[in-house]
């Protein structure tokens, strides 16, 4: 993939992360390449177990160790490899430059701490302010996400799921990070609340000029929110491109299958198609292209060679030599 290196906020190269357990090694992320430009929003899409969360935790170095092990690769953030940072530098990056929003707001907040203190904690860590200034800034931040002043001293259990996620968003954006990683931020919420929270995130992202990686398995959310999309399968990126070009023209057989399995309101359709087979066992990934056992286009070579990313139109890449050849790009 090519992009001017200076425009890149995040450049992940050949990242490999394994979980070593008693029962075997889980190949959670396997030779992942991913780029994110400044101010961009990237949607990272894939099924459960595709390695999306692991990638996110890898970027902030919050992998549970053990069992998580980074086997290799680089994660260049602002041109510097976070994998080489010491713990203290890492702490100033976490929260200050890269903030995270986790999937389940119900369990993401400390149950014995009032919400304003949880936001203020973030501010105090990254700005030179007094306790009272931090609390004041926290109050402003919470106001921005729609939490009224009289609720500042409440504990997390006194809020609904959607409100808790607003608190989590306030924490994440409190120190004006360059990159926000949101790991399925709306999956645990009611559908009506999902839209509100997503709208809030979009607005704040614009307001703060933050880049964002949105991890989800919901193609609809990506279409509404993201500039770029990366499709992950079994720890690898299989397709990457501008949202528009990828949605108009999905090309990797897995992406095509993914789109076909989503109901489309505008088209009449009696039956949704299903990708045959199951996600591969992450302890025992197929050789070559991990998708080949389930792929209708698979050729003999697919089981031998690991596919590389091929640009099929400007800014649109797929990891499938068979399809690329069909398009005359190989």
């Amino acid at each position, binding site marked *: 993939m090519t992009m001017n290196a200076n425009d890149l906020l995040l450049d992940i190269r050949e990242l490999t992360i394994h979980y070593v357990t008693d029962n075997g090694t889980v190949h*959670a992320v396997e030779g992942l390449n991913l780029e994110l430009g400044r101010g961009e929003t990237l949607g990272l899409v894939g099924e459960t177990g595709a390695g999306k969360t692991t990638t996110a935790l890898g970027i902030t170095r919050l992998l549970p160790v053990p069992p998580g092990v980074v086997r290799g690769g680089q994660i260049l953030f602002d041109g510097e490899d976070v994998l080489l940072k010491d713990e203290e530098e890492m702490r100033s990056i976490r929260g200050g430059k890269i903030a995270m929003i986790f999937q389940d707001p119900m369990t993401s907040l400390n149950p014995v701490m009032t919400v304003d203190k949880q936001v203020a904690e973030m501010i105090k860590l990254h700005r030179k302010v007094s306790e009272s200034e931090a609390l004041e800034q926290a109050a402003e931040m919470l106001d921005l996400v729609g939490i009224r002043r009289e609720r500042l001293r409440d504990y997390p259990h006194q809020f609904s799921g959607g409100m808790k996620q607003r608190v989590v968003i306030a924490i994440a954006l409190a120190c004006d990070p360059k990159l926000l990683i949101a790991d399925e931020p709306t999956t645990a919420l009611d559908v009506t609340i999902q839209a509100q929270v997503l709208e809030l995130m979009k607005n704040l992202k614009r307001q703060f000029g933050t880049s964002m990686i949105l991890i989800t398995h919901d193609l609809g959310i990506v279409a509404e929110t993201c500039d770029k999309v990366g499709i992950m399968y079994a720890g690898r990126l299989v397709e990457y491109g501008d949202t528009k070009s990828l949605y108009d023209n999905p090309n990797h057989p897995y992406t095509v299958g993914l789109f076909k399995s989503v109901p489309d309101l505008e088209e009449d359709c009696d039956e949704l198609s299903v990708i045959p087979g199951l996600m591969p*066992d992450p302890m025992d990934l197929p050789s070559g292209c991990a998708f080949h056992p389930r792929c209708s286009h698979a050729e003999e070579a697919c089981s031998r060679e690991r596919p590389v990313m091929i640009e099929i139109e400007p800014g649109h890449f797929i990891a499938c030599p068979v399809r690329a050849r069909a398009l005359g790009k190989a």
Partner: protein
Amino acid sequence: MNENVEMVATTGGRKTRSQLGEVLFRLRKSPLAMFGLAVVLILIFCALFADVIAPHSYSKQNLSHMFEAPSRQYLLGTDEFGRDILSRLIYGARVSLQVGFIAVGIALFVGGLLGAVSGYYGGWIDNGIMRVMDVLLSIPQTLLAIAIVAALGPGLMNLMIAVGISAVPNYARIVRSSVLSIRGMEFIEAARAVGSPDIRIILKHILPNSMAPIIVQSTLGVASAILNAAGLSFIGLGIQPPYPEWGAMLSGGRQYIRDYPHLTLYPGLAIMITILALNFLGDGLRDALDPKLKR
């Protein structure tokens, strides 16, 4: 993290062993649990065949061999009446295991019944039973056992009853909560829908499915019953001499502690190793029965 867990879970499903086989397999992987099991089996063997393996009589006094240090003839020495300590310990295993198992049996029967009824029927029956259990729980277990023995008088049978009754609330609570968690499940609804009588549902469906916590609690319960009984005997409320009980032996050797500490050392060691073994086994069983809890 989530992803990781789910992945492991899906691959774990491949292995098809029977439930019991799976539990035994996991239990075998824990060396401490296997140690515990081995000790418990040895103790059971000692208890069953005490008459055959004990080198001497447990009660025969030999005043020319008082307070002897361990020797070839008396492997662990002799006590204040010249009785062989090893033989007394071997016979003592019989008492301790008997007390442990029977007391837990009593507690399990009474507590299990109360808990099952309480959890299955709910309502005022549940309320009434559990309030009584609350009252019993607010008397510390050892104290309750002491009070019961004080009322009934000393002796093996009374000791077992006292220790057993004092543990009833523990089992009632465990059984009740597992019954409650299972009662709402659909296969119980199904059994009820086809008209199975209550007692059949409790015995055939609910109890087998709440076995895991009961087995664990019982194993650990035998340990605490033995410990409690030894404590009661130590203060003179349990087994009466000359029958050898480890707690009573300790108590008897106490006054000679300055000059002949081996009189107290070995019975105490016997108690500790027994309890330790049962605790290791209980912990191992818990991990094996419910791998989700294992850390």
